[in-house]
């Protein structure tokens, strides 16, 4: 009869006869159940009555025959499974797994039925006696009798392993079958995965390990580094797929580890060092994809990235060192710096595209840059020179955003410089030149740079630089005031005078090597002086004649020209208004220009390109009239240091000799009306360089002392090493002080009784108010 569609079922109610106290009852009942279970095992259960079997099982347990039932069941299943094991082990190779699988499936179905029939026993007898439930019992029995049967266990393992191996070699295998068998092993562990792990996973891992060990050996000998990595990627992907296809997910990390160890960890060094295709050559050739692949692979294993990082970092150091120490490149600040910037760009690009901006890598590459930039003591100067060049001419026709980008890049390198105070010195000098000679192209760009420095190093760092800008602005106001003042006096001056009033301390100070200015200029200067002092009482004006520029009109026999010269050159040229021929000594005496500067300027004037003066050849002519003079002034001056960059035209060997005689070159010819006499360009001489150094060192002394006093004032007492480390910390943003020097400063402060050594412990200092 079929069940009716509405799901109703009929119920037949048989009157119970009550439970019989029959002595034969257990035996008889078990016999009945046993017959039924046989039928179940033969997959022939459809004619059995669940109700009847359940009732019998129920009555057995109710009448305390649970143990008999349980043990008999165990014996019966045991016997049955032994027969199953025999059939399975007798099956031929191809059918072996199939046979095992089908007997497993049958066993499972049978056990589920038996469990259902005996569910009352499971709930009561089994629970009370802490036995394994009927189904679990079935699993244990299957494990012991079938899966661990001596004729099956090893054969099963070998079959499975050889199938995996076949798949690794590219053959197609029955994944579903393996999956089922693997699932069987997992199930047989009951509540753990022990059976799966012991019987299959461990041997599989061993096998995998040896497989990839062998494979990686052959691969690494035949493939280049990128090829090897590509193959490894494929292998790893395949293994992961294997897990998802037929292994337990808990095996994934273990399998991965084994593969990664064999394929990556064991060969990292070889891969990195591989000639012509290893890490170094990837870096050289910008192989972004390969580097990315390497990063991905190496990030899987411990220490992989560290190794990669170290190699990259030392390579960068080496390359950077090459640039920094390269005599050729260091000669030209522009190319020197450009190559550093290019290097930086290259590695930034690398970090972003191949290394996922990994913090570790960013840090180590930065450290490498820091290392080699500071190797060359001239780096701070070169940075400043580079900026100087950019701001003078390098940024023409470039949009504001691009300027910003360039400046940011420069700043990135600047950040790595330890001796920021040295940079400041040079920057100040260069900025002064730009401002005074009007060389800067864009005021905005200048201010932008200052603002960036300010955010980078703080207010202190830029306050003087900003002061320079203020001076420039104030000077403009002063000059317009001066002009109205002159007009009001109704007394025209012979020349236009333009003065920049510079505050001492803000500007790189120069020694006031005063020269004897011509009369007409002196007149103007006096006029300005009296105007300025009337407005600003009590100030002292000093003329910085070495920083000025002038435009003079020169009437040559052929043509008249306008000459753009420095103040010194103007003074020299004006002498030739009165005399046509002068010896070096005469010039020196009449002008009072220091010998070194005089030589430089004469060199510029006798330069074959613009030969305004002739050496030794006597000649006459022409009058000159000064038009504009720019003189600079400041109120004090200490030690000089001047360096300038820009186009240096190498003069043909000849240097000015003190016995030389100079004359006005009447044959001077030029296509241009305005002739610019090349500025006196000279690299910082070693002496000057040393002076700058000394000055920086002197400054540092004061800064270290100030820092010590600040710290001690706050702490009152402090241990020596703590004090030193705090001082270093405080000054880090400007330079890195040498502990030995710090110690000297401390001693000096003790001598001057700012500090004293503690009486209990010589290593502790006390602050003396």
């Amino acid at each position, binding site marked *: *009869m*079929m*069940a*009716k569609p509405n*799901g*109703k*079922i*009929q*119920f*037949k*109610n*048989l*009157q*119970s*006869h009550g439970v019989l106290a029959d002595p034969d009852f257990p035996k008889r009942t078990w016999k009945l159940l046993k017959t039924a279970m046989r039928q179940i095992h033969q997959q022939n*259960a*459809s*004619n*059995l*009555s*669940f*109700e009847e*079997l*359940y*009732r019998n099982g*129920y009555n057995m347990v*109710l009448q305390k025959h649970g143990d008999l039932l349980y043990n008999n069941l165990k014996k019966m299943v045991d016997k049955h499974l032994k027969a199953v094991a025999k059939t399975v082990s007798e099956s031929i190779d191809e059918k072996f797994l199939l046979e095992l699988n089908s007997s497993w499936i049958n066993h499972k179905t049978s056990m589920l*039925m038996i469990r*259902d*029939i005996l*569910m*009352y026993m499971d*709930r*009561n007898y089994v629970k009370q006696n802490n036995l394994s439930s009927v189904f679990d019992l079935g699993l244990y029995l299957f494990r012991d009798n079938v899966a661990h049967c001596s004729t099956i266990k090893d054969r099963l393992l070998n079959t499975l392993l050889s199938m995996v191996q076949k798949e690794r070699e590219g053959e197609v295998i029955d994944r579903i079958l393996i999956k089922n068998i693997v699932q069987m092993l997992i199930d047989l562990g009951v509540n753990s995965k022990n059976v799966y792990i012991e019987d299959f996973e461990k041997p599989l891992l061993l096998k995998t390990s040896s497989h990839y060990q062998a494979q990686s050996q052959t691969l690494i000998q035949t493939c280049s580094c990128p090829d090897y990595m590509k193959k490894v990627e494929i292998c790893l992907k395949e293994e992961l797929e294997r897990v998802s296809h037929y292994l337990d997910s808990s095996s994934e990390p273990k399998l991965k580890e084994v593969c990664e160890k064999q394929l990556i960890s064991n060969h990292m060094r070889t891969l990195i060092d591989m000639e012509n295709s290893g890490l170094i050559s990837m870096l050289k050739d910008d192989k972004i994809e390969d580097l990315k692949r390497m990063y991905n692979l190496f990030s899987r294993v411990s220490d992989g990235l560290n190794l990669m990082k170290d190699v990259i970092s030392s390579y960068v150091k080496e390359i950077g060192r090459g640039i920094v120490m390269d005599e050729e490149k260091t000669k030209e600040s522009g190319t020197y710096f450009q190559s550093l910037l290019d290097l930086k760009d290259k590695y930034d690009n690398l970090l972003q595209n191949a290394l996922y901006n990994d913090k570790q890598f960013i840090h180590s590459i930065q450290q490498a840059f820091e290392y080699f930039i500071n190797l060359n003591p001239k780096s701070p100067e070169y940075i400043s020179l580079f900026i100087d060049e950019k701001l003078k001419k390098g940024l023409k026709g470039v949009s504001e955003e691009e300027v910003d980008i360039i400046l940011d890049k420069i700043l990135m390198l600047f950040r790595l410089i330890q001796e920021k105070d040295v940079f400041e010195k040079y920057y100040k000098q260069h900025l002064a030149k730009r401002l005074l000679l009007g060389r800067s192209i864009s005021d905005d760009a200048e201010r932008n740079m200052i603002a960036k420095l300010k955010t980078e190093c703080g207010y202190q760092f830029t306050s003087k630089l900003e002061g320079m800008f203020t001076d420039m602005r104030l000077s403009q106001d002063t000059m317009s005031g001066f002009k109205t003042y002159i007009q009001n006096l109704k007394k025209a001056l012979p020349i236009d005078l333009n003065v920049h009033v510079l505050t001492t301390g803000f500007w790189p100070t120069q020694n006031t090597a005063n020269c004897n200015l011509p009369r007409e200029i002196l007149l103007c200067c006096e006029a300005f002086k009296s105007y300025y002092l009337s407005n600003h009482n009590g100030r002292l004006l000093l003329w910085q004649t070495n920083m000025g520029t002038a435009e003079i009109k020169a009437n040559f026999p052929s043509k008249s020209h306008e000459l753009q010269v420095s103040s010194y050159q103007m003074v020299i040229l004006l002498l030739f208004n009165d005399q046509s021929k002068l010896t070096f000594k005469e010039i020196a005496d009449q002008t009072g220009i220091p010998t070194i500067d005089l030589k430089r300027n004469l060199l510029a004037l006798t330069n074959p390109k613009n030969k305004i003066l002739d050496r030794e050849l006597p000649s006459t002519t022409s009058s000159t009239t000064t038009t504009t003079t720019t003189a600079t002034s400041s109120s004090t001056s200490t030690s000089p240091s001047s360096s300038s960059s820009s186009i240096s035209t190498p003069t043909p060997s000849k240097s000015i000799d003190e016995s030389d005689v100079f004359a006005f070159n009447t044959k001077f010819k030029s296509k241009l009306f305005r002739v610019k006499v090349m500025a006196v360009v000279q690299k910082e001489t070693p002496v000057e360089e040393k002076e700058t150094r000394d000055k920086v060192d002197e400054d540092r002394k004061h800064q270290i002392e100030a820092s010590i006093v600040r710290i001690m004032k706050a702490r009152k007492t402090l241990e020596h090493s703590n004090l030193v480390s705090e001082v270093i910390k405080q000054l880090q943003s400007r330079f890195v002080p040498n502990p030995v020097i710090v110690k000297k400063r401390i001693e000096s402060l003790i001598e001057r009784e700012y500090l004293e050594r503690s009486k209990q412990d010589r290593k502790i200092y006390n602050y003396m108010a």
Partner: protein
Amino acid sequence: EEIIELINQRNNCLNNSNKIKNDETNRIDYFYTHKFVLSARSPVFMKMLSCQMMESNSVIITSHFPRSIFYILLKFLYSGKVEMNATNVLEVLAIADYYQLEDLKDFCGKYSLQTCIDGELDICRVLYASEQYGLEKIKQL
């Protein structure tokens, strides 16, 4: 309420479909019920009706319990209510145990204890039954 009514209607059916076998003592009664109700309430019925044996293919399943007791069980399965007295409480307990209805077993246990206190039931019988059917709470008392 609706469920109770349903059962009342079924009662008519039940009465109409009673059958008597030729053997005088083996009178057969038929109840019409729903598979899913039985399965949902009793694990034994659930297995019985889903297990690939005779019952899952058939529309008739049998029970050896007396008609009156089985009727109480059915009513309980459908409505969650149970009508008992001192005379049949232990029989209801037996059927509850057979079909593994733990809540009904607990209730029977409490009820039988109450009837003992009222003096309507022999305490020894109650104890024997609770021992047999594994009513731990009553045994402890």
